[in-house]
C-alpha cells in the first residue's frame, strides 16, 4: 500500500544542508520567488520555516555490527548499510559545510566487497578524514580503519586479522578458492598501501596458528596495532578531534 506523507508535519529536520543557498537565492538575486516557495515548502513538510543552524563542521560515520552489502542480513544482525554510506560520503565530499569526516569503528566484519568499496571511497576523499577504532575493528573493519588519512585506536580495542574463507554462499570448487585468494590479495594490498604494516607481517598475522583458540589468525590489541604500523596512534575521541581540527586549520591556511 502506498501512503503519501507529504502533508505530515514532522519536527525533525536535517542537521546539515550539503548544498546550501544555491536554491535559496543567495547566489542568484533573481531567485526570490523560489526562496519563498522553499520556505513554505519547509513549513509544509518539516513544520518549521528554516533549516536549523549548523552545530558542527564535522560529519561522523559510525561503522557498527556487520558491513552489509548486496544481501540484506537477517533481523538479529546490526548492520552498516553500504548503499547508504557510499552516497553519504559523496555528500560529505561535496558539502560546503562539512570540513572533515570522522569514522568510528566497532565492527565485526561483513561483506568484503562492500567493505572495500567503503574503504576505497574514504581513501579517495580530499577532505580530512580520521578513523577511531573502539571496541573492535575486525576482518573487513581493518581496511576501513586504515583508509582514513590518520587512524587512532583505543588502548583496549582489538582488531582480528584472519583469512577470508569459503562460506555456504559460494560453491566450493577450485576456481572459488583461487578467486578467494585474489580477493585476499586485494585486501592485503589495500591495507599495506594505506598503512605502514609490511605485507609479510600482515600475512603472518593472518596465518598465525597460536593466537586464536579454534581458528587461525591474530587478535591485535591497540598497542600492538600501532607497533606493527597498522594504525597510526593510540588515542581516543579528543585525540581524533584534535587531529582533525588541526588538519582542517592547516588546509584553511594553505588556501
Amino acid at each position, binding site marked *: 500500500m502506498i*501512503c503519501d506523507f*507529504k502533508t505530515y508535519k514532522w519536527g525533525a529536520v536535517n542537521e546539515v544542508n550539503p548544498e546550501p543557498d544555491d536554491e535559496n537565492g543567495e547566489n542568484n538575486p533573481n531567485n526570490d520567488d523560489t526562496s519563498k516557495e522553499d520556505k513554505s515548502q519547509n513549513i509544509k513538510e518539516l513544520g518549521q520555516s528554516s533549516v536549523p543552524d549548523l552545530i558542527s563542521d564535522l560529519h561522523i560515520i559510525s561503522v557498527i555490527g556487520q558491513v552489509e552489502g548486496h544481501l540484506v542480513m537477517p533481523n538479529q544482525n546490526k548492520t552498516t548499510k553500504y548503499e547508504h554510506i557510499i*552516497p553519504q560520503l559523496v*555528500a560529505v565530499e561535496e*558539502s560546503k559545510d562539512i570540513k572533515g569526516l570522522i569514522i568510528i569503528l566497532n565492527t565485526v*566484519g*561483513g*561483506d568484503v566487497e562492500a567493505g572495500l568499496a567503503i574503504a576505497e571511497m574514504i581513501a579517495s576523499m580530499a577532505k580530512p578524514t580520521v578513523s577511531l577504532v573502539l571496541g573492535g575493528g575486525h576482518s*573487513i573493519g581493518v581496511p576501513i580503519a586504515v583508509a582514513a588519512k590518520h587512524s587512532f585506536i583505543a588502548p583496549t580495542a582489538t582488531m582480528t586479522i584472519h583469512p577470508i574463507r569459503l562460506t555456504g554462499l559460494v560453491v566450493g570448487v577450485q576456481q572459488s578458492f583461487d578467486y578467494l585468494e585474489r580477493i585476499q590479495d586485494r*585486501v592485503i594490498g589495500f591495507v599495506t598501501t594505506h598503512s605502514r604494516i609490511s605485507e609479510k607481517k600482515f600475512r603472518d598475522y593472518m596465518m598465525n596458528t597460536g593466537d586464536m583458540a579454534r581458528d587461525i589468525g591474530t587478535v591485535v590489541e591497540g598497542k600492538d596495532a600501532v607497533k606493527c604500523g597498522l594504525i597510526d596512534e593510540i588515542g581516543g575521541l579528543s585525540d581524533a578531534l584534535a587531529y582533525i581540527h588541526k588538519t582542517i586549520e592547516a588546509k584553511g591556511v594553505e588556501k
Partner: protein
Amino acid sequence: MIFWSIVPEDVVFNGWEDKLELQEISYMGKTLSVRSGMKGSASVERILSTDPKDFLRKEFNPGNKIPFLS
C-alpha cells in the same frame, strides 16, 4: 557475496529464509523503501534517491522509525 567476519556464519545467517517484506512509500517528497513494523510504524530500509543531500538527513537514515498510516 564473500563474507568475512569474526561472527560465526550460522549466527549471522540464522533466519535467512524469513521473507523480508519491503514497501515503497512516499515520505516528505522522497521515495523510501520501508519495513513495516508494529503499531502502524515503519522503519526505513533505504532511501531511493540520487540526490546526495538526502543521505545526510537523519530522518532518512536506515532504521529510523516513521509513522506509517496504512
